[in-house]
C-alpha cells in the first residue's frame, strides 16, 4: 500500500454514513481512489442492523421513533449496533486483490483490527482481537466489526465504545440466547467501554489520532488527508436514497 487516504468526518447523518462508505468502496474497487480510512460519528444517533437481520426481530422501532433514533440497514453482515454519542466508527476500504488485505476473510479481520488493538493498547488497555469480529478487554466487547467484499474492494467498518448511555440500549431487542452464549445475563455484562476500563474519559480526537497513526504503521504507508473525490460525491445521493428507503430497511 503506497498511501492511505484519511477522512475525519465527525458526527454525520446515518444514511449519509452508509452511503459514503459504499461510495468509497466502489471507487477504491474501481481503482479510482486509493485505500481509505474514514472516521465518523452518528448524528442523530442510530441503530444499524446487519445485511441478513430481520428488522422487527432486532429493533424496537417504537422506542427508536420515540427517542428519535434513526434505523439503518448496512451492506455488511453481523449484528445490530446502537451508535450513540460515546462511540467512534471507522471504515477501511482497500482493493480486494492487491495483497495488502489477506484473501482469507477470517484472517483479514485480524489484520484490519490489528491497528485498532494497537491504538487501544496505547491508551493503556489490554485489548485483544477475538475471532470472528470482536475486540475485547477483560473478556468484554469494546469493538464490533463487519466486513463485505464487493465492487472489487474489501470494506470493513466497526465501532469503538468510548462511553455508553445505557438508557438507550432498549432500542435493541437483544436475544437472550446470544447473551447466554457469551455466559452473561445482560448487555451491560457483555459490553464494556474505554471509560469503564480506564476509569477516565477518552475523547474522540485522541482516539482518532491514535487510530490514524496505527493504521499507517500497520500498513506501512503515510496517511494523506483527502475529501471524497468528485466521482464519489456523484455516487452518494442515490446511495443515500437507497439507505433511507423503507424497501431497503425492510428487505428482511
Amino acid at each position, binding site marked *: 500500500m503506497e498511501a492511505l487516504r484519511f477522512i475525519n468526518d465527525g458526527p454525520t447523518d446515518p444514511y449519509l454514513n452508509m452511503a459514503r462508505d459504499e461510495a468509497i468502496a466502489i471507487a477504491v474497487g474501481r481503482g479510482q481512489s486509493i485505500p481509505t480510512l474514514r472516521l465518523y460519528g452518528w448524528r442523530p444517533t442510530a441503530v444499524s442492523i446487519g445485511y441478513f*437481520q*430481520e428488522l422487527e426481530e432486532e429493533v424496537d422501532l417504537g422506542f427508536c421513533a420515540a427517542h428519535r433514533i434513526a434505523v439503518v440497514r448496512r451492506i455488511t453482515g453481523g449484528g445490530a449496533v446502537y451508535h450513540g454519542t460515546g462511540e467512534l466508527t471507522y471504515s477501511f476500504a482497500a482493493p480486494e486483490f492487491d495483497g495488502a488485505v489477506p484473501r482469507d476473510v477470517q484472517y483479514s479481520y485480524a489484520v484490519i483490527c490489528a491497528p485498532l488493538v494497537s491504538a487501544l493498547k496505547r491508551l493503556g488497555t489490554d485489548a485483544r482481537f477475538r475471532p470472528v469480529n470482536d475486540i475485547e478487554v477483560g473478556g468484554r466487547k469494546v469493538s464490533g466489526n463487519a466486513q463485505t467484499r464487493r465492487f472489487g474492494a474489501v470494506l470493513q467498518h466497526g465501532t469503538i465504545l468510548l462511553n455508553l448511555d445505557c438508557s438507550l440500549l432498549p432500542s435493541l431487542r437483544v436475544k437472550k440466547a446470544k447473551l*447466554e*452464549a457469551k455466559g452473561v445475563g445482560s448487555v451491560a455484562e457483555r459490553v464494556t467501554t474505554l471509560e469503564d476500563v480506564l476509569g477516565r474519559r477518552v475523547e474522540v480526537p485522541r482516539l482518532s489520532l491514535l487510530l490514524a497513526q496505527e493504521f499507517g504503521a500497520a500498513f506501512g504507508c503515510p496517511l494523506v488527508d483527502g475529501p471524497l473525490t468528485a466521482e464519489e460525491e456523484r455516487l452518494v445521493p442515490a446511495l443515500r436514497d437507497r439507505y433511507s428507503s423503507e424497501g431497503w430497511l425492510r428487505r428482511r
Partner: protein
Amino acid sequence: MERSTTRRCGGGKLVKVTVRAQGRTIEDIRITGDFFTHPEGTIEALEGKLVGMGRGQIGGAVRGVLGGGNLVIGFNADELILMIEECLR
C-alpha cells in the same frame, strides 16, 4: 403454514429459519441472523433454490450452495439443514 426456528450456531451467531410450507414442500424460506456470507448473495441464492423443494432435497441444495466456493461465517451446512427440516416437520 409458517414455522420458524432460531438457533445459536457455531461462533455465537444466531440463525433464524422461517419456512412457509405447502404440505412438506417449501413455498417460501427466509434465513436471517447476525452471520456473514461472502458473497452476501449466497443466502438469497440458497433461499431461491430451496423454494419448491421437500425434505429429501434440502441437504443436497444446502451443501451445494454453501460448499460451492461460498464462505459462511457463523453456521455450517449441517446446522442449517437441521433447522430447515425442523420447520418442515
